[in-house]
């Protein structure tokens, strides 16, 4: 179903006119309100008048995650705090989070694009939406919640955890829609099986999975184990949260809600714009955000764009399922993890760094994050209690910084793989793309 026929099926020429008007207004806003952008435009010799048409976008400065970090916590905000009604946050590259403010208008926009998202997968007011995305600073929980309410569906705000209880609810409350990370969906299926419950026998028919990359094989596995149609969604808190793009029933790419989020694909090294169809880094510009508009945000996600009208009738450009990252960011259980965050924790303990390695694996269905530390003579002691205390201290601090638990494993010296003498910092054994 198409939630907003006018905008989702608008002839592309009209859409581009709308995007251009909105881009001009958004640029004017950031130049007036955000010193960071004033300076970035000045450095390039650009004035507000520089944006005549959409093709001028390519000259505008990029915004990177480092820019967000450098302006921590709210230096990129375009409105005063009294107009801000909510803050969300996601992981930054170091210990500091990326904080994102929202106005009333932003929450309304977000509810609207999430209503479009849910509707695209077939959700209506008759549905019961089991929302197992985490509620809190993470945008997943509240984003889905608002969209489902806007549609008029019944929302069950489960959040994460308490897996057995989730399964009982899925069975007893007649949920028709499951929203969570794809790996948690598989975990639910596994636990249900242990409980002797067949999720295929429940009312579930639609699954909306995102917040982490997942392979086509995983999609098939989820569909066959739970008995629903699995849809991919894409979004990021820096832009809005979930609600940037979604698959329709034809599942031939994810429709980007381009009237609000203007996409480009660039060559990651040079930043040069790439034509439709070519694979590169996705760059997004918000067109209607109020509290924190961003110009040309480097998402780090690799994809390509297809502007052809879809069989569903939407004229919105489609992005292919993301096929990688341009940086070393890991997504573990839906949470962004930067190796530099882990390093910042290890640096606090003498003798731990540089002898460490990050290992991500998916032994069963959920991701395991392990930090291996080579036991050098500097940290080794005959006292087991002190070694265990070190493990515990690192585990606690990693949990504080990352927001997810990591196992700290002490290993013998030289057990960490090195290539050409250089320690390989991250080993990801999961097959999340493809």
């Amino acid at each position: 179903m198409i939630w907003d026929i006018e905008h989702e099926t608008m002839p592309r020429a009209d859409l581009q006119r709308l995007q251009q008007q909105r881009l001009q207004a958004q640029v004017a806003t950031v130049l007036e309100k955000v010193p960071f952008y004033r300076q970035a435009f000045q450095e390039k010799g650009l004035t507000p008048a520089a944006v005549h048409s959409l093709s001028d976008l390519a000259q505008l400065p990029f915004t990177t995650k480092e820019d967000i970090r450098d302006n921590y916590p709210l230096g990129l905000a375009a409105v005063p705090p009294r107009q801000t009604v909510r803050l969300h946050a996601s992981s930054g590259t170091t210990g500091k989070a990326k904080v994102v403010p929202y106005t009333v208008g932003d929450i309304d926009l977000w509810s609207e694009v999430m209503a479009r998202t849910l509707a695209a997968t077939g959700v209506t007011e008759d549905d019961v939406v089991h929302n197992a995305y985490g509620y809190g600073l993470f945008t997943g929980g509240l984003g889905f919640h608002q969209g489902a309410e806007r549609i008029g569906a019944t929302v069950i705000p489960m959040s994460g955890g308490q897996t057995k209880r989730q399964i009982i609810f899925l069975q007893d409350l007649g949920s028709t829609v499951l929203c969570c990370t794809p790996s948690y969906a598989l975990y639910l299926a596994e636990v249900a099986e242990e409980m002797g419950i067949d999720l295929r026998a429940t009312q579930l028919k639609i699954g909306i999975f995102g917040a982490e990359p997942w392979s086509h094989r995983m999609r098939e596995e989820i569909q066959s184990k739970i008995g629903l149609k699995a849809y991919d969604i894409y979004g990021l808190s820096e832009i809005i949260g979930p609600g940037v793009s979604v698959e329709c029933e034809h599942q031939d790419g994810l429709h980007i809600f381009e009237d609000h989020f203007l996409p480009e694909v660039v060559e990651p090294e040079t930043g040069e714009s790439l034509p439709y169809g070519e694979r590169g880094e996705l760059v997004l510009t918000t067109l209607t955000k109020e509290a924190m508009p961003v110009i040309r945000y480097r998402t780090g996600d690799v994809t390509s764009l297809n502007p052809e009208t879809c069989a569903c009738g939407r004229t919105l450009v489609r992005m292919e399922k993301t096929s990688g990252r341009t940086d070393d960011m890991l997504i573990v259980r839906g949470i962004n993890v930067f190796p530099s965050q882990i390093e910042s924790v290890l640096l606090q303990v003498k003798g731990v760094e540089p002898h460490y390695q990050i290992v991500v694996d998916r032994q069963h269905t959920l991701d395991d994050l392990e930090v291996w530390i080579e036991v050098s003579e500097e940290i080794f002691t005959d006292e087991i209690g002190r070694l265990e205390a070190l493990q515990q201290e690192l585990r606690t601090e990693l949990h504080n910084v990352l927001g997810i638990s990591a196992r700290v494993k002490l290993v013998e010296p030289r057990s960490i793989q090195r290539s050409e003498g250089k320690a390989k910092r991250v080993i990801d054994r999961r097959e999340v793309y493809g």
Partner: protein
Amino acid sequence: MKETQISVFLENRPGRLLHLLEAFADGKVNLRALSVADTADFGIARVIVDDVEAAVQAIRQAGLTAATTEVLRAEIPNAPGGLAEAVIRPLARAGVNVEYTYAYNKGGSENAVAVLKVDDMEKAQQVLGEE
């Protein structure tokens, strides 16, 4: 009397203890006593040897991590109640805590030897009449 014990970090999986013992064999290091303590992830092998320096060398050459610790070495009668009466009871009375201990039998001798890691080395030695 005081004795230097060598502790070695080992991962808790098959073959790691063998790796250590092979290193000792190659370095011609004779073990007088060996004890292995384990946790879920790792173990610590503790050894008493004749030549501490040679042993540490062999451990490092094998790519392993060693630490030396001062422990107490006490001769005990090789008879029922020997360890309790000669060593543990006096230490307990004096409030010295034993963190771990292991014992070995000297070949062809009437006495056995206990190795003890205590929280107060000086006091333990006084109690056992060694100082």
